[in-house]
């Protein structure tokens, strides 16, 4: 069964923290996730466990119960969740132009591969020149 994007609830802030850990680490035990989350802010192990159980019920994460320590993984990849959030009407209409309202170190428009190659070359040359 593959739920459509609308079938899954949008993750809350706390849930997103846990999902972020699962996305970056891959499948993890609750202990691993707790270790990671407590680096952000001090959290009880049981709190994380409770959250992850709720998320499993919601379908945000899947639990693999074959091992002694249950292993959790995110049901959907980061890009999917990103699309889900970006699917919000306002974001769909104005998400693109929102870039003109924020300040960023990088342009809203992605650099082309040629441009990246050019920058790579510039950096290499600079490094050679200073050595």
């Amino acid at each position, binding site marked *: 069964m593959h739920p459509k994007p609308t079938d899954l609830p*949008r*993750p809350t*802030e*706390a849930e*997103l*923290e846990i*999902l*972020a850990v699962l*996305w*970056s680490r891959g499948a993890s035990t609750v202990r691993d996730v707790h270790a990671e989350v407590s*680096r*952000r*802010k001090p959290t009880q192990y049981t709190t994380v466990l409770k959250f992850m159980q709720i998320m499993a019920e919601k379908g945000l994460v899947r639990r693999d119960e074959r091992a002694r320590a249950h292993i959790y993984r995110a049901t959907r990849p*980061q*890009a999917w*969740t*990103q699309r889900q*959030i*970006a699917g*919000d009407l*306002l*974001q769909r*209409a*104005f*998400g*693109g*132009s*929102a*870039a*003109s*309202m*924020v*300040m*960023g*170190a*990088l*342009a*809203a*428009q*992605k*650099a082309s591969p040629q*441009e*990246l190659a*050019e*920058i*790579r070359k*510039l*950096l290499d*040359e*600079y*490094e050679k020149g*200073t050595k």
Partner: protein
Amino acid sequence: MNALNLWIHSLRAEALGWTLFHFLWEGAAIAGALVLLLAALKPARARYAAACAALLAMALAFGITLAVEWPWHPPQFTILTGAPAWNFTGAVFANGTGATPFRWSDAVTWAPALWLLGVVGLYLYHLGSWMAAQRLRRMGTCLAPEMWQRRVRELAAIAGVSRPVALLESCLAEVPLMIGYLKPAIVTPIGLLAGLPPEQVEAILLHELAHIRRADYLINLFQTAVEGLLFYHPAVWWVSGVMRAERENCCDDSVVALQGNVHQYAAALFTVERSRSRAPQSALAATGNNLARRIRRLLGQPESRDLSLPVLPSALLLVSVAVALAAWQPAPAARQVQKPVDVLLAAQPAAPEPASFAIVAAEPVRANEPDAPPEPPAAQQSARPQAAVQPAPLDVTYIIADEERSAFLHQQAVSPQSATGRWQFLSDTSFIITPEERTAYTKLQTSEEQDKFIEQFWARRNPTPGAPTNSFHDEFYRRLSYAASHFAVLGNRTGAYTAPGWAYIKYGPPDQIEDHTSDARNPSLFWRYNYLEAFHNKAEFQFVKVGENYRQQLNFPPPLAIFTGVRAAADDLVTALNNESRQGQSAAPAQAATTGLPGTHATISISPEKPMVILSVPLDGLSGRVDVIGQIRAVSSTGAPGATVASVRDYVQASGSGGTWQSNFTLAHGSYVGRVVVRENATGGIYTEEINFEVK
């Protein structure tokens, strides 16, 4: 649609139109100055300041121009005189509508509406973008690890940011960015903080902190507002683009100044850029933030090709300057269109005394009808060139004295001759044909020539030459038949020759009608037009019911100035009046002239906008047929002092209970003296007055 039309033709919209027009060259000039400044300035901060100043100057230029053009004291519409029905002389304008060439004033008419539409659209779009940006803070975000929160506080202290800065991780953001002014937040993509070497993360954070310290978020909001307001000018977009580019350069410089390691920072930018997800993203407006160029600048590498003055914006700049310059010439002319070329309508073909005065007089209408029977040879030749040459639309001022004009026309219309198309054409078109055309037409011999003339007559007025139908011709005859069937109020006279019929044919259906015909004391009908091209103003006709017929009066905005007459002799005019035959009126023998009118003094009022000079002669204490001569002489003006620039000879039926006789003139600037002679036929009493006045 009606409200839009009203607004488009309002003085405010006109002021806006001219402001938009003038900003074309103002904006181009400011951008030009910025081009020169940028060529001289190297440091990013100075370049940024120059671009900011340029954008501010553009906003100020627009605001000041608008303030100058704005109608702070618009004329309010009121009825100029409460003249009773029976004794007025209305001024009537015939507008020879030639094929109208494109005029800048036309563009200016529509520009404000389109501009406003654009501004509202852009602002709504910006509002949506802003709301979407605000959501980036809340949707799909979580606080960054405590360690980085702490580090941001330290870096903020180093960077000189005093406000608390939140550090968020977002699964929506693709690049690190900064949102908010009062409660600023730095939003980084999930995984960036953990995935990059700490020094590189710090470099990126310092860049965003530099934005916070410089209040760039707030400045960008103002910038967007100005950009949206002046969106139609490419120079504005270019200046705004320079600002965005230099703003990033400023932040780059400040990171390098704090960290001291150029390569490390450039490498951080490169890594973040490369790590952006390859997934196609929604189309974004290019912000002209070329990363390769930025890094080259950071590393002190010479630009491979100097694009500091980009080709496209410069071309756009040149075009807008050219357009503004091209428009500059016709512009004053376009404004002059408002002052119609008035033509002497007297029967004497030696029509207008050239240029020295804008107008000459309007003679009584009776003198005005085609009186000369067809004249032989040369006439045909003179008719042709006339038809071909006469290019510009002529605004012709003439006076409808009273119903005699209609009666005359009607007589022609029903006379046996009129069975032929000859007189039919003249009577049909009597409200729009110019005197020159009329003279030319009456001199034509054969019906072929007349047909040809009629064809050309309509062709000249065709708004869309070449089209299968002539909308002017069709509309004219539609109105003529409508007027004939709807406004026939007197016996068998056709409705086209009654006052409302006349107004309907000339100006079409009014925007507003007020019916006071059941008012026993002053039965009248008001027709209001929101805008009449002939007057460049709104206009109101008052049709006063007299018996079964109407007489009309045109009401103008209130006068700018009113001058009152004084008792004075006018012997030459008195003599002229006395020498005239009395036209079969049984009149008392002539008496010696009395200085001063029997009732109140005569006045000259000058109405705004045209400017229109209105001579009013109160008829209190007079009754029966009253002959009037009004004469305007120059005291000092563009013409020779002492010259008579306008004169009117008319008569009215006075009731003895008041009323006013009026006549209108259009005069050039200068000082004048108006002289009035009134003769009451029943008693033979003659009264004279004169009024010194000035047209400014």
